[in-house]
């Protein structure tokens, strides 16, 4: 692994290909639940790896995967802020529980759970991911997304409510 990182720092093509091979599936999974469709996730993956190859010279931490993940999350945040600026995030008001398609399987897999996250409105999804999965505080989330702390809390609450309802509909025991 150290050889690959060292190779990437020297901009060696073989090392970059190896690194992509090692982490692409895992990072694509991350990209998927930060977006609402596969195409956006592909774009995120593309931009994320380019940024990693550009900035790998600055990497000096122990946990490489965590560092990579942070880069992908940062890019997702940048895209979110840009979309917000372009007023492309307007689905919250029109969102209803019925917007979520029913999941057919009674036994939910990770894929299905991620699909539920992907179906959340963009802002709810971002807040939920950052709080529940990444472990950020509401104040931090508010700073990152450019929203109020109260909005972050209410978005999280609403996201949980939606996910919970969806899980209940599917009669999944999540105890």
């Amino acid at each position, binding site marked *: 692994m150290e050889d690959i990182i060292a190779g990437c720092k020297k*901009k060696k*093509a073989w090392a*970059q*290909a190896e690194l*992509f*091979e090692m982490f*692409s*599936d*895992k990072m*694509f*999974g*991350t990209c*998927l*639940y930060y977006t609402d*469709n*596969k*195409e*956006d996730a*592909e*774009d995120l*993956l*593309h*931009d994320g*790896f*380019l940024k990693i*190859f550009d900035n790998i010279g600055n990497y000096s931490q122990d946990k490489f995967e965590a560092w990579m993940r942070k880069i992908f999350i940062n890019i997702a945040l940048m*895209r979110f802020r*840009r*979309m917000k600026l*372009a007023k*492309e995030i307007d689905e919250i008001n029109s969102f209803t529980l019925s917007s979520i398609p029913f999941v057919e399987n009674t036994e939910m897999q*990770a*894929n299905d*759970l*991620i699909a539920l*996250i992907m179906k959340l409105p963009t802002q709810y999804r971002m807040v*939920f*991911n950052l*709080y*529940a*999965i990444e472990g950020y505080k509401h104040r931090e989330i508010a700073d990152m997304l450019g929203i109020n702390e109260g909005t972050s809390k209410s978005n999280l609450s609403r996201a*949980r409510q939606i*996910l*919970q309802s969806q*899980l209940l509909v599917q009669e999944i025991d*999540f*105890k």
Partner: protein
Amino acid sequence: MMKDKKNIDDIFRNASIAYSAATPSNAWEKIDAALKTKRRRRLIFWISFSSFSLFLILFSIFIFSDFDYQIKSLMPNNSKVQLIEKQKYNSRKAVDSSTTTLQNFEKPSSENSLTISKINQNSNPISKAKKLSKKLEIPSEPNYNVSKNKNQSELQEPTSISSKSIQNNNIIESHRLKLNIENAEINSKVLVSPAELVKADILLSKIEDSIISTTKIDDNLQPNSALSRDSIAKTNKLKDRFIPEFVISSNIAFGFTSKISQAPKLTEFTSTSTTNEKYGKVPVFGLNIGIYFTKNLSLSLGIQHFNLITNGEFQIPQNNVRYVNVDNFGYTTAGIYSVQNIETLYNTRSYNPVDYLSKLSKITQSISMIEIPISLGYHWNLNNWKFNATTGFSFGKIVDNQIKIGDEKSWLLNGKLKSIKTSISGINFGGEVFFARKKGLNLGIKSDLIMYLNSVSMSSDFSHKPFIFYIGPQLNYWF
């Protein structure tokens, strides 16, 4: 309730930690292509940067070394003026001191009279001076001793100064002094005064020293002596060579450009639309400031406006109309947009994408660009005409970018594009011809070929590196 919330968080966190998904098969190919493009751009940047730095260094060396040489070659002229002034001053001083001796002198001795007669017998002023100098080395009378010693001390400075003197003008000055001596000789017959002799002696010594020292310096400096005719000619040539000339030029021109397609990539995942563009038209307006700093070399800095207008044909494949990838248009990287979003993005008045399926539609693109060329030129004269060949770097900035697809009744796209890549750079090769009048207005012809090192397109799918060629009249004002 709280526990339920925590449980929901845990369920999704656990799901996400272990979650991975198969990446699309072509993901690496896209990243690899982007990395190669970045490497190429980096290489182009460094080549351009290195070339420009090298150019600046060579240019600086050329300029400063030549000016240094010029200053050195002009140095003797300055010292010449100082020396002549100093000589004149010392001559005056010597005359004053001899007048003082004359006042102290009561009666001329027979030896002094003999000296005068010897002077009168010898018509060569240099030999007279030499003889007088020998005479002065042997004092005969106390009074004369005083005056001689005094005058010898006076002579020391002019001698040392004249030994430094290296100019031809000294010879002219010497001749003038010779005439003074001759006059002094004539006068001495009348006055029969040793003081006059001393005065003459001083002047003749000066002449002798001046001539001897001039000869010495000439010997030292040959064959590149600034005093020799060749070196004077060379100095004059250098002076002529280094008189800089300034010119302000404005030009209007017309030319053509290569394909610069930025047509949108209508796509459902990987398929693209097709665009067939022809060579574009380029009206040009430019303003240039040039300095002709040597007989053959010039440096110019300008500002030019290009309007790159390309026309072509555009086709949407029938099975790929669901998405428009606006990345091709740049600015937003939001990714895939549905066709409906075109309306808000590009101010489309009316369209029906179905009408465009598998049809060839017109595509017109107009890029407005401001460019700053920095060029080094080599010029020469031929039968009253001056030719100037230039090469250098061009730095362009796209200030406007319009695209139209379809016809006026039903535009598919009609609007302004905001480009991610608005700065491009390239290498220019040009030529100018104008009537070789030195000052004032004159007409000429200017042409230029600019080859850009990077693409104006937004996507690697349209990675044409454009070139522009133009030719047109030029109005020059020479200062």
